[in-house]
């Protein structure tokens, strides 16, 4: 482990932002990614370790102006226990249900999951499908400043985000899907949880008579970041959910993904899974 010279535990967002502005900070939230990565030498501590778990502004789940604001420190367990999330953000709730283990869910935060930016990040895939945006806080000129970035622009690559070194991820805002929207999250694995997805899918839509509207399709573990599949969405949007439409959507999706072969799966198998399971997920969703 590296030399940590200072340990800080700020108790307000402003204090946290001040510390960040001074530079050379590693942010600690739940620790469920930070600790194993540091032990394995996959990341190195900066001289300042800043524990944000005592910053109250980073907590809470609330509906505000047509969106659900989820504080960065909200744990996966808190998301699972939120009626608001379960009822209105079903895809996100399902992803949380497949997340690691109870012990990890109790500590892991949505902010940490976002900043870890894994290509297979469980919460990231449904958040992407739900058009989420992250709220980044900083104090560039002595006053607290926030900016909002769509999640698709926030995630740059494996482990990389557009969060600046003086910025703290304060919250994620998830616009409520339109009434009648039904979505499903699928994660490939042999276990309910405690698995890193070989592929994951978040897909949803609402019915407008015989046609599909507000179609969202997102994938995990088939590209350097979780991705939306705009061509698959276009193949479904405004169409009836019949066999031909589903097949067209799946073929479009296959053209949009760039899976790699690694020790968890080969690229060939990932493509087969997207083909088979996107159809299955869409078929489930379209029945609702």
């Amino acid at each position: 482990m590296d030399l940590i010279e200072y340990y800080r535990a700020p108790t307000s967002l402003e204090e946290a932002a001040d510390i960040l502005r001074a530079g050379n900070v590693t942010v600690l939230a739940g620790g469920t990614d930070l600790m194993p990565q540091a032990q394995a030498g996959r990341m190195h501590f900066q001289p300042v370790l800043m524990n944000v778990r005592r910053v109250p502004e980073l907590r809470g789940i609330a509906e505000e102006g047509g969106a659900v604001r989820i504080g960065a420190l909200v744990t996966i367990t808190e998301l699972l226990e939120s009626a608001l999330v379960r009822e209105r953000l079903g895809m996100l709730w399902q992803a949380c249900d497949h997340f690691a283990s109870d012990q990890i869910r109790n500590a892991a935060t949505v902010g940490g999951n976002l900043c870890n930016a894994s290509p297979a990040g469980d919460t990231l895939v449904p958040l992407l499908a739900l058009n989420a945006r992250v709220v980044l806080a900083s104090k560039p000129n002595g006053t607290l400043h926030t900016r909002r970035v769509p999640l698709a622009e926030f995630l740059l690559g494996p482990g990389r985000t557009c969060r600046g070194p003086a910025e703290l991820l304060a919250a994620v805002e998830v616009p409520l899907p339109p009434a009648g929207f039904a979505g499903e999250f699928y994660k490939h694995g042999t276990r309910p949880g405690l698995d890193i997805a070989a592929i994951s899918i978040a897909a949803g839509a609402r019915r407008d008579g015989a046609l599909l509207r507000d179609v969202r399709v997102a994938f995990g573990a088939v590209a350097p970041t979780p991705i939306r599949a705009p061509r698959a969405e276009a193949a479904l949007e405004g169409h009836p959910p019949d066999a031909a439409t589903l097949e067209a959507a799946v073929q479009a999706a296959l053209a949009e993904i760039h899976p790699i072969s690694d020790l968890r799966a080969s690229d060939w198998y990932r493509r087969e899974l997207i083909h088979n399971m996107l159809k299955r997920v869409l078929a489930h969703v379209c029945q609702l």
Partner: protein
Amino acid sequence: MNETLIGKRIPKMDAPDKASGKTRYIQDLEMPGALHAKILRSTQVHARILSIDTRAAKALAGVHAVITAADVPWQRPIGVGKDHLPLKTDRVRSLRDEIAAVAADSEAIAEAALKLIRVEYEPLPVVATTLAALAPGAPLIHPEPRGADSGEHLKTAGTPVAFAGKPDNIAMTFDYAQGDVVQGEAESDVVIEDVFRLHYVTHCCMGVSGVIAEFDPGGNLLLYSNTQVPFLHKREFADLLGIDPGRIRIIQPPIGGGFGSKLDIYPFEPIAIFLAKITKRPVKLVFTREEEFVASPTRQPVLLKLRSGCRKDGTLTFRAVETVHDNGAYTSWGATTPFVMMQTISSLYRVPHCKYHTKAVYTNNPYAGSFRGYGNLQATFAVEAHMDKLAAAVGMDGLAFRLKNAQDPGEITPQGMHFKTCGFKQCLTTAAGRSDFLRKQADNRARWNDAGPVKRGIGMASMLHVGGGAKIYPSDGCGTILKIDDFAHVTLITGASEIGQGSETVLSQLVCEELGLPMSAVTVVNNDTDITPWDVGVHASRTTFIAGNSAIGAARKAKKKILDAASAKTGRKTDELGLAGGFITSNSGEKLFELAKFLRSLHFSDKADLVMTTFYYEPPSRHQDKQFKGDVSAAYAWATQVCEVEVDTQTGIVRLLKVTGAHDVGRVLNRLGIEGQIEGGIVMGQGYAITENLMVENGVMRNPNFRDYKLVTAPEIPEMDISFIETMDGEGPQGAKGVGEAPAICIAAAVANAIHNATGVRITALPFTPENVYRALNGASEPPVWSAAA
């Protein structure tokens, strides 16, 4: 009247402490003044060591010693093949090879010191497969030694020379034959041949490996070790150090899992001993989990070609097997799994003609050790696949075909195994009956072309394993010392080690049954070679049988002594008396004397005697002869398991829904304990079949962690229906036979048959992970190909 303890559900005696977190495992023991040791392992798979610079490491504050092979010129090779020097001299042969070791004031300092050691390597070509190892001109893993490896400097009186090297990469070969397979094939109406590939898995004991070594001022060694064979290792460590074995004491702390992983000496224990000797301080060495994966032996991976046949009436005629065992860089028990495999090939079901050949081949891969089942999983996987295929070929159902060839009590196999008790047929009919096997099998087959991606399958497999010890060492015995104090409290001093399987509980149960005392009256003393009599060790599912008979022997001697004294006192004959409920009784149950009072009167009388007895039990089995023939165990055990699976053909995910098992265990002693062993074995078999895959590529282990090496978790376990067939073995303690390994052995074979029943596809390679299964179902996999140079 005292109710019998046999067959009851008796909680494990050490469970309360374990559930409170009070039990101290090797990792929890702190010796005053102990140093902490860490090992520097090779970063190359195959390389010459050009230089090792330890100066910076030695200079680090808190470091007491940094050693390499140069510091221990007297070290000797260890392991089953004696081809393995603890600290490597001129070359490394696998990625876990031990090059240097540090003893320091703390683990953190020791780890920091490791980082300061500079090693210069000259890479050598990596031999990553047995095919490459057998190719003409292949690099030799153990060439004739030069330099420090040659042992020239070790040649003092009685010192064995370091491993003499080999002209090729063949570590060991095994050959077995019964009858004449050519004749057998000629008599067959159906002949089939397949190649099977069995993969790397590893023990994953929840407690990582550790050892504490301490020399006293007189040069006597105290070793805290989780060895499963303490008395054998006492001798081996003595040879290693060139001292009298009497000067070594091994204490086995409670163990965090064994499963056969601790039946050989691995470099970390001698290295800790070397450091203790050099620093003159106690030295504690504990693995990290990654080290546990990388540096522990695996299960033996096997490439197996099976050719077998039967007549059209369903009788088996012959089996011809060739295997290639990837021996890895050094030889441990994995190479000797043929001992068990040939038993299965020759004697699981009645087969008159049989031929078996194994080549164990050196490579730069991890080496295999002994692991619960010890080759039997691999052999059974092949045999039971062929039982299904042969049955189908002659138009018989799988149950009838198996029953036709299953042995009966009293049979002696051509290999010389005498099946005095044999519940094989009952196992088959019970498991098939309770699982509704035939109807479901037919039903599933009828649904092959149904719409819907999820298919159900049911498959059956049986196993045969030793159940009364295994006479592979000079002795297969166990000693017991028993004393009863003035308060009728029994101290049972047994050579048998407790490794979490519940031996201390079942031994107490057997003794209490003889002496008519409650379980609370017994204290078991074990796991200390200075105190307990000899036992060969925990392997081959032998402990209940052998240590049980030993404990019963000592208890019966005590009982006789007590009843003889009571006879003298009462004038009744000894055989008219008994022990029950803490009393000396008449045969009609009349309470004559309270046992404790009687013992005190014996002690404080003119006779002034205590009850102290001993008994050494050696089972009536025989060593195999040079042709591997002989009745190697005093009893044999069978099980049939029926596995029901669900296969999602769009993902390849196989879920094990239910296991219906029938086990011939002789007799159920501790019902709670035996259920626990079977449930645990089933889930271990499930892991072997479906979820566990140690990925080794070019000598590198790609997933040495729990994130990507998948043990079965609680949500995945199947429903389990377990029946016991009690054949009441005449030699077994209260009729019991050994069961420790049995439940893990035929799960993979049954799952393979179940996947075939679900999909029509026979997969002959493990594991049945989703991508592997999906590829097989879609014609996108390469089935194993037989490749072994003649």
